[in-house]
């Protein structure tokens, strides 16, 4: 087959997003298609896996194989897929609730397992799809119907968790900058092992003040740290709306138990001989 040159638009499916006008996720969708075009990915050899939420609706809008699974469970599905089909480029994606609340355990263990998957988390610090409940990244004083006086809880520093748990590539980006975002996504896909990109992606409906992120975000000010410790420093004490690549590790990706662990069928059957 001769290689086909595809434009970003070729990576869009025909399905119209259900998102609110102005939702940050449109920018993410656009950036993904740009990144795919840049990497010349073949749609048939690319798979995008998500959970449930506004953000998690993305796969259907992308021209690639997709799986819109269960709330919180995108990463196990992506893990099984990538391990069984190492030939595919596999991305996982979803919202802050999907990945850090109900999906928190898989997030932590996926970082540790370091399978070659790229994770995009559209962080809007709210549950969009269920209409405005606090997520693990919601500010403690943000009022919601559930907690009119705020949650009083410290937001989860998910990137710090990612670093500590072993993610091999960590970046923070902004949906309002689809070109920068596209570059980061392309870089993450190319980087071996488990990559985490936290995307500041405004929910204009339940967090209208996030429209202001476009003025607040410090674009591309971060550069890969020299050590995990340094990267940790950046995500724990640095400005929280600063974007850029934070960490590029060199852990070899996990691909399974390895041949040495195998036993041939003959030998196994011998074991049954009475």
């Amino acid at each position, binding site marked *: 087959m001769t290689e086909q040159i595809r434009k970003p638009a070729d990576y869009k499916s025909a399905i119209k997003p259900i998102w609110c006008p102005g939702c940050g996720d449109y920018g993410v969708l656009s950036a993904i298609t740009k990144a795919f075009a840049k990497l010349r990915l073949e749609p048939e050899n690319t798979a995008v896996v998500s959970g449930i939420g506004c953000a998690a609706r993305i796969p*259907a809008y992308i021209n690639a*194989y997709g799986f819109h699974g269960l709330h919180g*469970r995108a990463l*196990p*599905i992506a*893990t099984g897929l990538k391990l069984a089909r190492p030939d595919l480029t596999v991305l996982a994606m979803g919202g802050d609730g999907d990945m850090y609340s109900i999906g928190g*355990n898989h997030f932590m263990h996926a970082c540790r397992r370091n399978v070659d998957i790229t994770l995009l988390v559209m962080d809007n610090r709210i549950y969009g799809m269920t209409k405005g409940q606090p997520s693990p990244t919601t500010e403690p004083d943000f009022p919601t119907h559930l907690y009119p006086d705020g949650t009083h809880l410290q937001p989860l520093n998910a990137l710090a968790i990612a670093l500590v748990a072993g993610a091999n590539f960590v970046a923070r980006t902004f949906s309002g900058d689809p070109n920068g975002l596209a570059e980061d996504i392309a870089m993450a896909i190319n980087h071996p092992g488990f990559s985490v990109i936290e995307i500041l992606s405004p929910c204009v409906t339940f967090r209208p003040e996030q429209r202001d992120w476009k003025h607040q975000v410090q674009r591309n000010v971060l550069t890969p740290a020299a050590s995990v410790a340094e990267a940790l420093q950046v995500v724990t004490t640095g400005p929280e709306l600063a974007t850029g690549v934070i960490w590029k590790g060199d852990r070899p990706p996990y691909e*399974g138990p390895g041949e040495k662990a*195998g036993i041939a069928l003959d030998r*196994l059957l011998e074991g049954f001989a009475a």
Partner: protein
Amino acid sequence: MSQTSLNSVSFAISGSGGAGVMTAGEILLMAAAKAGYYGLQTRSVGPQIRGGEAASLMRLATFPVHVHADAFHILFAVDWLNFDRFSGEIDLAEGAIVITGKDSGELPEKVAQTASDVIRLPLHDLLKETKGRVNMLAAGIIGRLTGLPEDALADAIARRFASKGNALVEISTATMRTGYAQGEKLLNHEQRLAPPEPRNGERWIINGNEAAGLGALTAGVKFAAAYPITPATEILEWLSPALTGAGGMLIQAEDELASINMIIGASFGGAPALTATSGPGLALMAEGLGLAAAAEIPVTVIDVQRGGPSTGIPTKSEQTDLDIALCGMHGEAPHLVLAATSVADCIRTTAWAVHLSERLQAPAIMLSDQMMGQMKTIMPRPDLPDLKAERETVASCGEEDYARYALTNSGVSPMALPGTPGCMYTADGLEHDERAIPSTRVEDHAAQLKKRWRKLADFDYGNAWADISGEGPLAVITWGSTAGAVEEASREAEEAGIRVRTIVLRLLSPPQKAKLEAALEGVETLLILENSFSGQFARYLRSFFTLPENVRTFHHPGPRPVTAREVLEAIREAAS
């Protein structure tokens, strides 16, 4: 001593604190197999991880056996510590003998009441010479009493301890011989097995968990993800190196939510995929199973049932995950439920579960239980079943949008695997239309619900849905490991002149209504047997099938299995 006892001998070896009673049992089983006998071994253990009280429950016979006899002829009790923890599982036969230490103390009441002879041996003294362990002494004594050749025992010891060095083999063999000689002096208590049929072909010693793993492997499973849980862990431990050896792999997931979703992901990618668990894990997989049903992803879950509810009794058996296996998902999520009927059948039914799951693009639950999962059984080397994972896929797509969930005649829609050009689609657990696009429309919902249902309901499952034998107006129906007792009891009933039709279901869902009702034609009384407190199987039968006028049920909870004697009594009553 009745004739039966010579064709089949049962004994228990119990002791506490790492007395090695399981090893003694294994040696006896290996020796019996060598000598041409059939047999089985289960273990009853306390809650301790290691040491603690344990009993090796054994049956040796001249014919293939799938279930314990009703009662034990010999009880070898190294001591009586915490014996009451499993005394409920050890009924002594009439005329049973109890062998114990000279100073093991008073017999537990239940034992004292039923034993007809108590032989107290100076165990310590007997071990002085060889400095061996009491379990080898027991193996020798019981070997002698049951008439196993001394050489077969020695051979078993040599093989069993081969990796542990010569010294141990020698000491153990010598101790066994001391026991064998000691047995000679007790020959008036002999429970000698009749000579075995001439052995034709190789024999295996295998348990249901290994058999299930083997079934999965032969069907072509390439990916497994699982979280350890008693009593399913042996499946994983057997499968992991086996899958790697076959070019696949097993992943230990962080939890059961991850395991079910990992295999869904692998299967979406085209790899026949499986997990194994027990009740608590199955409960955690319910949501994932629903996704597999909705998104039409084949996956197989082996559930090795244990005592419930909740954490329950992890090391003991029961048939009480039927409810959750059949009805444990929210919404309507048609799926396959199969149940192995014996240790050997674990190979075939697991392979069939994988085969059907792939064929019908639906999740399959294959039910086993602790009893058969951990029962070591002597059997003729089986032919491996020719049931493979074969999925309908599409090779490529044209201009038209690919309809992943097309409403085909069979209800099965050819699946595009990632890598297939032009067929890109998004699998979805949201309701969707034929092209996999999410839809909340009444019409799409109705069409897809129906499609998912009829692809299972209309499929022709052939004859393997149940094992049926016998004739007459009295039918006995059961499932799972209880089949062993039912088969044995039916045989005895026939011998006693009671005609019994025996039905053992292998395919529980989709229910084979027409077939079962045909099998029940002419039946006046139906006796339903199961190992559960509440009668889940009986309720299942009532809800899906039109049953004969006269329905009787017999069930009690684990850890005591339903025995052939109980079944026979129930048959007698039903027949009278």
